[in-house]
């Protein structure tokens, strides 16, 4: 690990003042410390922001305001999250291990980096995300876990977060603070597609700090869930995952929320599938048709073509379960 300075931020203003070139904010450290040990990340300084905000509060609009320092366990355990946003509780509980969920924060979870093995392989692999312009060994290599949507010639990595997938489905909003003041940003706009600059994961400005995650009031989210398909039954990253909520009235889809994990460089808002479903019949056939529409532009690699039918069937099954119809 490269030497670095460590400081604990007293408040958001202090954190932002300390965030200079080459520094990184530190949450639970479960990804960043590992990346530093592997020398993938070499920050000159860490600004520990875990003490800043760990409250979960009701908003005037009927949603929840979640401090960025709330630990993953505490968020999944919160009564209002379990009852009003079960897709979020389920996604968190499907991620990592109990020990890591006790350490990891909400802000850190969103900003964790890909688990592409070529990204980690500092000794033997080329990676444009790790060393811009060096090339991508995943494209012609073992790419079973990689992206099928939105990838580029420079990068086919996926975003690993489970928690981010329901936040995209719910259209949650981030509260940010930087040297130029405060702003809000939909989670849907936080992560970038790789394009020519896969080394840049998000649209955050340098030194900008996530202070809170706001969930909107969304009564339909009570009928929601998260389903994760992975190589073993626990403690593994998603091959594909689905966060879904649906409201059916008289056999017709009145509203639907759908987001996918494990398929792209960012948690994927399945807007095409949502548009295909709203106002149509709540049938397994319609769900399968909408799922297929979402993957019309999918570009599978050598080893990951299975993700298209896997995700299509999983979307169909999850929506059928939530709508109470036979798949």
């Amino acid at each position, binding site marked *: *690990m490269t*030497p*670095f*300075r*460590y400081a*604990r931020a007293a408040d958001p203003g202090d954190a932002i003042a300390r965030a200079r070139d080459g520094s990184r904010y*530190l949450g*639970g*450290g*479960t990804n960043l*410390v*590992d990346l530093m*040990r592997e020398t993938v990340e070499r920050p000159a300084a*860490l600004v*520990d922001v*875990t003490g800043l905000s760990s409250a979960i509060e009701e908003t005037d609009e009927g949603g929840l305001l979640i401090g960025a320092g709330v630990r993953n*366990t505490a968020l*999944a*355990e919160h009564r209002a999250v*379990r*009852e009003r946003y*079960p897709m979020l*509780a*389920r996604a968190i*509980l*499907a991620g*990592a*291990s*109990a*020990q*890591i969920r*006790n*350490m990891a924060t909400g802000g850190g979870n969103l900003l964790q980096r890909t688990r592409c093995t070529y990204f980690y392989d500092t000794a033997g692999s080329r990676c444009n995300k790790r060393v811009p312009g060096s090339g991508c060994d995943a494209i012609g290599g073992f790419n079973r876990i990689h992206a099928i949507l939105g990838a580029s010639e420079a990068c086919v990595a996926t975003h690993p977060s489970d928690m981010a997938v329901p936040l995209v489905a719910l259209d949650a909003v981030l509260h940010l603070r930087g040297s130029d003041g405060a702003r809000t940003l939909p989670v849907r706009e936080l992560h970038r597609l790789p394009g020519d600059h896969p080394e840049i994961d998000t649209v955050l400005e340098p030194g900008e700090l996530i202070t809170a995650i706001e969930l909107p009031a969304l009564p339909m989210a009570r009928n929601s869930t998260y389903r994760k398909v992975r190589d073993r*039954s*626990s*403690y593994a990253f998603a091959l594909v995952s689905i966060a879904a909520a649906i409201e059916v009235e008289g056999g017709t889809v009145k509203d639907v929320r759908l987001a996918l994990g494990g398929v792209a460089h960012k948690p994927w808002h399945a807007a095409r599938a949502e548009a295909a479903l709203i106002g149509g019949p709540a049938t397994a056939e319609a769900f399968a048709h909408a799922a297929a529409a979402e993957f019309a532009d999918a570009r599978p690699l050598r080893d990951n073509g299975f993700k298209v039918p896997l995700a299509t069937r999983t979307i169909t099954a999850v929506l059928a379960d939530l709508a109470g119809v036979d798949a």
Partner: protein
Amino acid sequence: MPLTVNGAPVPLPDDPRVSLLDLLREQLHLTGTKKGCNQGACGACTVLVDGERIVSCLALAVQYDGRAITTVEGLVPKAAGEGGDLHPLQQAFIEHDGFQCGYCTPGQICSAVAMAAELERGLPSHVTPDLSADTVVPTREELAERMSGNLCRCGAHNGILDAIAATFIVDDPEPYRADRPLVTA
């Protein structure tokens, strides 16, 4: 404020690179906590922080300023001049063949002690059917899911789950061996 380890105050390391795991093993010579993968994947380094389980390999010691750390050596507070008392879960690991080589055992035991407290307070897991329930039915599937962050390369998981069940859930886990559920949901 220093952190405490098994009740004793410990100064923070000068170098922020020192992990909590290395502080425990290399500086305090508390070698019960094991270094397995050193990347958060195996759980051998599990310790308790204010009663909650974490993996100490991914923890920088400086982050735990003012916190109370408990390692396997501290699960049973020692009386003056005494030693050798086992936690009931340690005794159960012996009785139910909860280990073979023993390398993962301290992490398994610390993890299970905290897991029992999580069950007690009703924390749901990935396999909990009803998120809104106040209590969790401690099936064998629940125990296996909740212990999935602790790997045993010897394959002693059945004995480990028996030992945990015998200590925290039922008096005699024998009828619940293998695939049968501990408690019918």
